[in-house]
């Protein structure tokens, strides 16, 4: 009898303990929430001078923020015997969505009118070339599938000249006075960050001036501002 009672007691203990597991609250949840906005970045990559053109970016590190100064020095014919002076500023653009790039002359000084014999904004040739996918982390083929706006696809440094040795440019920075879209295209970057050398599209933006007997002026200066957007 005593043994039986003991076994019953043991059974009750077991019964009182087992069901508790069924009500265990032994888990917790963490929800990580975020979002991915459209993003784009434009950076300086390199510079190739045309003859006497000199330039540098600040900072001078490749892939730094684009803030480039191009010095064409003296563009008076007779003093400067080059066919053209200027250079190609290569920039890297990245985006995770279709993009468009606009350019605008946001400041200028020293430029005058052609009629008065001055150097004018129309004397500074401008164009895009050298579209190149930078590496394996590019999304698709933006270099092929991007569209350069009409007139901006010629390299001004090889433009022909008329009988008076005045360049015949397809486009000049005067065309940028009001701000204009110069290229549009599909998504460029397949992941990776702004420091990746493999997820961007390289674009050469070229500037060229043909030395002529302009009215003496010092200095001449123009600022072109680029805006990369993901509409």
């Amino acid at each position, binding site marked *: 009898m005593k*043994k039986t009672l003991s076994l019953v007691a043991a059974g009750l203990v077991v019964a009182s303990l087992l069901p508790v597991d069924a009500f265990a609250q032994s*888990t*917790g949840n963490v929800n990580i*929430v*975020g979002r*991915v*906005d459209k993003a784009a970045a434009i950076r300086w990559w390199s510079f190739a001078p045309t003859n006497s053109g000199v330039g540098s970016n600040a900072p001078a590190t490749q892939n730094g923020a684009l803030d480039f100064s191009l010095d064409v020095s003296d563009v008076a014919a007779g003093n400067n015997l080059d066919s053209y002076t200027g250079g190609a500023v290569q920039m890297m653009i990245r985006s*995770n969505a279709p993009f468009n790039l606009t350019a605008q002359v946001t400041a200028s000084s020293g430029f005058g009118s052609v009629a008065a014999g001055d150097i004018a904004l129309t004397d500074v040739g401008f164009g895009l070339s050298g579209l190149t996918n930078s590496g394996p982390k590019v999304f698709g083929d933006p270099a092929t599938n991007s569209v350069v706006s009409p007139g901006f696809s010629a390299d001004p440094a090889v433009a022909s000249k008329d009988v008076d040795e005045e360049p015949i440019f397809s486009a000049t920075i005067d065309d940028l006075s009001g701000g204009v879209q110069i290229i549009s295209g599909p998504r460029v970057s397949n992941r*990776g960050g702004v*420091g990746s050398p493999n997820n961007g599209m390289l674009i050469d933006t070229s500037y060229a001036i043909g030395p002529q007997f302009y009215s003496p002026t010092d200095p001449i200066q123009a600022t072109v501002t680029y805006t990369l957007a993901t509409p």
Partner: protein
Amino acid sequence: MRAFVGVAWLLLALAPRAAVAQYEIEIELPDPTFFGPDAPDEIRHRIGPLLAERVATDRPGEDSRPAGIAVIDLGDLSSNNPAFLVSGWIRIRVYSPSGFFPPYRIEARALSGPVPGPGNLVPSDVGVGVIDVEAQRPRIDPDFDSDPRTAPKNVDDEPIFVGTVASLGTGFPRSRLYQTRGWYVGNYNYFTIVFAVGPQFYTPAGTQDLGVELAIVLG
């Protein structure tokens, strides 16, 4: 006499199983000033708000206790975000009303995640690690024994995490975060779980929700 010995054996054998029923995983609420307007810019920029709830409790000395659910908002994870790594962490306490802990494991698994697709943010982009464990002789699993906030990056600006939410897996058994190797006397154990994401040119997407389930398992 033999029966009493049997009862005693049963009690010893079942005590840990009974105790697990009352363990609770709770979210420690952070100091509000840490995330508030007076917080340093870097902290406010890099760490999104932590949302957690409190629930009523009958514990002595506590009107309410933190619930076992939390939301970390990491904000914009695109390359618009200039942070090297966007991160968030949660201090978690494990409650034992019995006043002791037998050896146990903390396990985790992913519940849901972003939809895979070209260029998308995916669970393997979310680093996870466990730090600052306050428990009896804890041993953190090597896959998660690293603070993802200190992860390096490769040449493409992609973080090199030791453990990610993808490595937690989604099924059972869950992945072990850490285990203890002894008995601990006290009501609370603590650990911190850290998440980090490297901003990249992911495919744009609205709110991305990634759930992680934590569990305590004895043994």
